[in-house]
């Protein structure tokens, strides 16, 4: 079915170096927000999932990274995505962004999306505040407000090349937070932040979710972060979603023993001995 057809197209179209170049492929692909009312997609009916993934798979050459992934995300749902390094989290996110043209299966997403890439992807030739405004209509004041929220309004006029790792990450966050997405895709968005800033960003994310109620997919390596922020926790391993846990809706599910139990379960799913707590059993040297 669909899978076979994609395969054919995927192998038939893009032969290595000669053809279509990066910019070319991007341009001849579709454009987010571009408005294609007569396009292949429809409108959401209330209650339907906003993200539908069916039989999704991705292989690079012989290597199968993901296979047969089915997933629905509902409006307003915050899902955390955990998984070993190289398990395919970013690959899945790229597909949801609509920038992966070599995947199999069928994926539908809302047109209004916002993304924080794992590698930030700031345009080096645009000052920080202009980077925040890429693709949205807004004034410098809007950009400054967004930068203020992530705590780097002071660097608004800097070139991205001069930012520290955490600063770039926060610009990428501001860039996502200034939008009103129906789908928010965050690829390890807090990885380069210190504890304090990270907590602030957690707060901001919650606020944004409360305001616009987007479906959110948050890739993180921090199990605690997943438990604090997510309604639903997904673990990828061996190319599939091996665990799909819904966190209870009340606060108790995120604290105390319930949280500790969940933490242990997630860690064991990730291959870590859950009894292995930090600052315990290593004797140094």
């Amino acid at each position: 079915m669909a899978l076979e057809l994609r395969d054919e197209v995927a192998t038939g179209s893009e032969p290595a170096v000669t053809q279509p170049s990066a910019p070319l492929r991007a341009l001849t692909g579709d454009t987010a927000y571009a408005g294609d009312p007569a396009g292949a997609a429809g409108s959401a009916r209330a209650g339907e999932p906003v993200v539908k993934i069916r039989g999704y798979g991705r292989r690079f050459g012989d290597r199968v990274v993901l296979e047969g992934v089915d997933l629905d995300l509902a409006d307003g749902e915050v899902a955390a995505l955990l998984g070993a390094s190289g398990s395919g989290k970013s690959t899945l996110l790229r597909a949801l962004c609509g920038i992966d043209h070599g995947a199999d299966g069928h994926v539908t997403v809302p047109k209004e999306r916002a993304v924080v890439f794992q590698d930030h992807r700031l345009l080096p030739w645009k000052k920080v505040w202009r980077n925040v405004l890429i693709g949205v209509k807004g004034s410098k004041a809007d950009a400054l407000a967004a930068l203020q929220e992530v705590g780097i309004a002071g660097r608004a006029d800097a070139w991205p090349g001069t930012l520290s790792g955490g600063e770039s990450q926060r610009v990428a966050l501001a860039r996502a937070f200034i939008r009103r997405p129906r789908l928010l895709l965050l690829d390890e968005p807090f990885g380069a932040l210190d504890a304090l800033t990270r907590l602030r960003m957690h707060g901001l994310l919650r606020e944004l979710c409360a305001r616009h109620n987007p479906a959110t997919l948050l890739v993180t390596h921090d199990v605690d972060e997943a438990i604090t922020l997510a309604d639903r926790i997904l673990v990828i391993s061996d190319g599939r979603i091996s665990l799909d846990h819904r966190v209870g809706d009340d606060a108790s599910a995120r604290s105390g023993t319930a949280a500790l139990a969940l933490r242990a379960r997630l860690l064991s799913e990730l291959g870590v001995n859950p009894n292995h707590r930090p600052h315990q059993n290593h004797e140094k040297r």
Partner: protein
Amino acid sequence: MSAVSYDYEVVVGKAAEDSERPIAKRIAGGGLSVWRRIWSSRGTRFLGPLILLGVWQLAVSVGHASPLSLPSPSNVFTTGRHLVANGTLISALLVSLRRVGLGLALGVAIGGSLALLSSLSLVGERLIDPVMHMFRTMPVLALLPLFVVWFGIGEKAKVFIVGWAVVFPIYINLYAGVRSVDEKLVTAGKVLGLGRWGLIRHVILPGALPQFLTGLRLALGVSWLVLVAAEEINATSGLGYMITNAQNLSETNVMFVVLIVFSLLGLATDILVRLIERWTLSWRSSFVTK
């Protein structure tokens, strides 16, 4: 939440392709995947030249141009076949290829070295760069007599003239390429223990390679251009000689045959550089999926 409706799109799957249609149609001239697949095939590269041929034939048929200024494709083809058959064209091609080959080698070596000296050393930059910019606007045509005085009228002079012209695109592009190498990678290489030559070999040259190849593309083109000037000096064969000769004898057919040979050489050099690119820049294509 109220029942606000939002637009959706398919990002993976059958419809994802169709959603490319509007833009593909606008740019690519055909919206169906079938068309994209056809255009993707390498054979379509010959379409442009074929259209050109058609336009030429049309121009001749409509008859606006005199046969002296624009002969018909078939006439030119006949002349071409004749010139190939009697060996003139092939031997001219070989002679010119040798001159261009030697000149290119010389120019690339000199231009490349100067670009490296100039882009990697402050003193080199100060001394070399302005002089290069002074020389490169001096017209080859005007320099021909000086070349003759200094290098004589033999093969050496012709090779030097080609080399001279090649130096500049190589210099400019390699210089710019070196300067555009990501400094983070250079410092990383340094910190990782690479010495001067290690840095140049492992970081700077690979980083500048794409732009160097652009320079090479231009140099290959330029070398054929100056060949005509170089072969005004005491040449007894060669493509440049042939075309000047044909021009003076008003042998428009021959002139067009040689022009077509030049254009085929242009195509060939492009394919050559593409092959070099595919071979040396394969790491770039790996970004395809990121």
